[in-house]
């Protein structure tokens, strides 16, 4: 076989020619000229919600000539948390990844700041609620863009008939559809009396004391309404305070009126409690109501979502946001930011909220008055007060205002519900406080 020999001069000339040709060639804008973008979105439990997100992403991709691929990652079995941990370790993964509540802070060193787009979005859509400000920022750096998909308030969902019959409370009158709440008397004392009355009537409130998020979120809001924090914003231990003692005393009284098995409840238990018709109230986003609408319509017709009772230090409600984040090692940060801005426009957000049947809650002020919450039913207006349209609650997350990396430990270890259970089961108050203080000291390791 003959082989032509390439001289050094020929090689240099050929390289120079081909380089010149590449540089001088006209820029051809192909179908995916702006590159590729991969997304890991939360896998929504409401049928059709993922499709709404996909359609919006495809609209943007067609306009921007970007090749997109979306993975919908479920939170069942903490698959999403495992994906976040794996991508953080591998320093490789999706360009945009949905992270729940604490995870932007947990990965703050690896996230691309999004201050540039957040400034624009805040101007357009109004301010974000206090929970999102706490969870989404670190030293003035925005770690992600809050998304409505999966974000929720876990407020009370009451049975209209049972609350009227046993507690003499008309929840529809207290939180009328289409109008401001008249909830001045809806306090922790009233709540406790209602819990007692419904317990006596055979329909106890379904508030769990297990170690999963629904249980912890309710405890967090109740503790905060008493001003009870285990660790303050500066990282000081504040366990042994009167506020914490008051909150524990309140919980001890409340637990006596709850179902006897609440210490074993998980996030599904309260939903089942409402749907089965056994309870007069649970603390949950409207997912339980949505399931009841399908499986027990007679129960759904009597459900009304409303605000939290007010404590001595205010009215607090748990807000669990999701953030869309971009890794600092992402290969297409600019395209990712462009898509995030597109998906945060009110028109896009409204499409996603509508697709979720009102379950998803935007964090931006101007996006909490979409029609869907007023129109959803039965009964019509049942979700009107779900997004807290009159801003009468302080939206927060359990264990805040502790530094987020400490608070995440308090939250994940369910220290609040464990304290309540220990005290209720007969442990001395000071012993419970000493135990919690020891736990919190451990959580402060860096």
């Amino acid at each position, binding site marked *: 076989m003959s082989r032509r020999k390439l001289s050094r001069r020929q090689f240099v000339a050929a390289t120079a020619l081909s380089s010149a040709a590449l540089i001088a060639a006209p820029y051809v804008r192909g179908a995916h000229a702006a590159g590729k973008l991969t997304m890991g979105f939360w896998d929504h439990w409401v049928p059709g919600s993922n499709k709404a997100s996909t359609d919006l992403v495809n609209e943007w991709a067609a306009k921007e000539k970007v090749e997109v691929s979306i993975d919908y990652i479920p939170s069942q079995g*903490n698959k999403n*948390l*495992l994906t976040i*941990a794996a991508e953080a*370790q591998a320093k490789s993964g999706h360009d945009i990844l949905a992270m729940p509540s*604490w*995870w932007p802070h*947990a*990965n703050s*060193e690896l996230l691309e700041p999004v201050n540039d787009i957040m400034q624009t979005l805040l101007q357009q859509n109004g301010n974000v609620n206090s929970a999102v400000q706490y969870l989404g920022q670190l030293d003035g750096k925005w770690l992600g863009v809050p998304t409505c998909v999966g974000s929720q308030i876990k407020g009370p969902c009451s049975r209209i008939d049972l609350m009227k019959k046993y507690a003499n409370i008309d929840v529809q009158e207290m939180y009328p559809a289409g109008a401001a709440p008249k909830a001045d008397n809806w306090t922790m004392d009233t709540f406790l009396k209602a819990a007692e009355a419904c317990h006596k009537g055979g329909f106890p409130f379904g508030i769990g004391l*297990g*170690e*999963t998020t629904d249980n912890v979120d309710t405890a967090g809001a109740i503790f905060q309404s008493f001003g009870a924090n285990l660790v303050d914003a500066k990282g000081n231990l504040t366990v042994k305070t009167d506020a914490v003692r008051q909150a524990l005393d309140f919980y001890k009284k409340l637990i006596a009126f709850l*179902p*006897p*098995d*609440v*210490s*074993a*409840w*998980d996030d599904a*238990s309260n939903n*089942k*409690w409402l749907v*089965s018709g*056994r309870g007069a109230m649970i603390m949950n986003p409207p997912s339980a109501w949505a399931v009841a609408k399908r499986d027990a319509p007679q129960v759904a017709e009597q459900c009304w979502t409303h605000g939290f009772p007010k404590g001595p230090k205010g009215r607090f409600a748990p807000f669990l946001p999701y953030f869309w984040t971009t890794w600092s090692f992402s290969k297409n940060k600019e395209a990712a930011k462009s898509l995030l801005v597109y998906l945060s426009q009110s028109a896009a957000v409204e499409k996603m909220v509508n697709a979720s049947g009102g379950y998803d809650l935007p964090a931006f002020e101007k996006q909490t008055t979409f029609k869907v919450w007023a129109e959803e039913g039965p009964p019509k207006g049942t979700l009107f007060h779900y997004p807290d349209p009159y801003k009468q609650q302080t939206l927060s997350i359990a264990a805040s205002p502790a530094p987020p*990396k400490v608070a*995440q*430990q308090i939250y*994940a*270890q*369910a220290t609040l519900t*464990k304290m309540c*259970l*220990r005290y209720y089961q007969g442990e001395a108050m000071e012993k419970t406080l000493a*135990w919690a203080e*020891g*736990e919190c000291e*451990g959580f402060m*390791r*860096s």
Partner: protein
Amino acid sequence: MVDVAFQPNRVAGAKSARKRSSLKTALKRKSTAAFLMTLPLILLITILVLYPAIYSLHLATLNKSMQRFIGLGNFEFLFKRDTFWLVVKQSCIFAITAVVFKALIGFIVAHFVHNIPAKGQRKWRGMLLVPWVIPPAMSTLAWLWLFDPSYSAFNYTLSFFGIGPIPWTGDANWARFSVILVNIWYGAPFFMIMYLASLKSVPDQLYEAAAIDGANWWQRIWYVTLPMMRNIIAITTLFSLIVTFANFDIVRILTAGGPLDHTHIFATWAFRIGIEGSDIPLGASVSLFMVPILAVAAIFILRDVNKRGNEA
């Protein structure tokens, strides 16, 4: 294994030819062939077992933000935590109780099955293996329904007899009982099948000789069956102990470690700390804590098995 070339008498000429021939010889050695054939598995184990194991060791030496080497600092921290010692205690209770009962039930059932006439034995063996064949994540979901705090099928049944309701997963002791029970249910068939295989290999002549000597039922078990099954019992127990200590799915699904951390074992607590609490180095340290203890146990048990093997 005899480690010789297939063609050892080949005559070498020039130096290069000798080199080539020695390569050929090496390739033709049985040990080389064996190594090459196991190479894919060695690579697989290196990638999927060895690398993660070394990586988790590395993780366990880092601080919470994984930016600083702190040596054994994580273990030092753990040793000061009450919850950690609670988890150690519970892991031991969980693993030892479950393995003892699995071995006991496996042994008894294996004898029953062994005594069933050969014709119907296969059916029974198949049926008894069902719990072990179903993926535990799935079967535990069924148990979760049976133990559900508000809608327990067990409690529903017991209510007809005026018993209960029992807080299967709501009370610390009942919750421990429940997770151990499910683990026994899942693992006993493995013991049963191993013991059955072992029983079948005990020569009948030994029993005949024992019967002639006037040995009763208990003496036959104690002096014939058990000594003949010693090795299989040791290996099965060791294997099961390691697997039970590392259990995750049953506890995670049934109780998630609650109530008040009273059912947490190493894997579930490591997951709680590492993944849910975003403290991966501490989670890695928790999961690695048992490695030296189990390794020492493994060395002793396997050494004993070897010794007995040689005696035989």
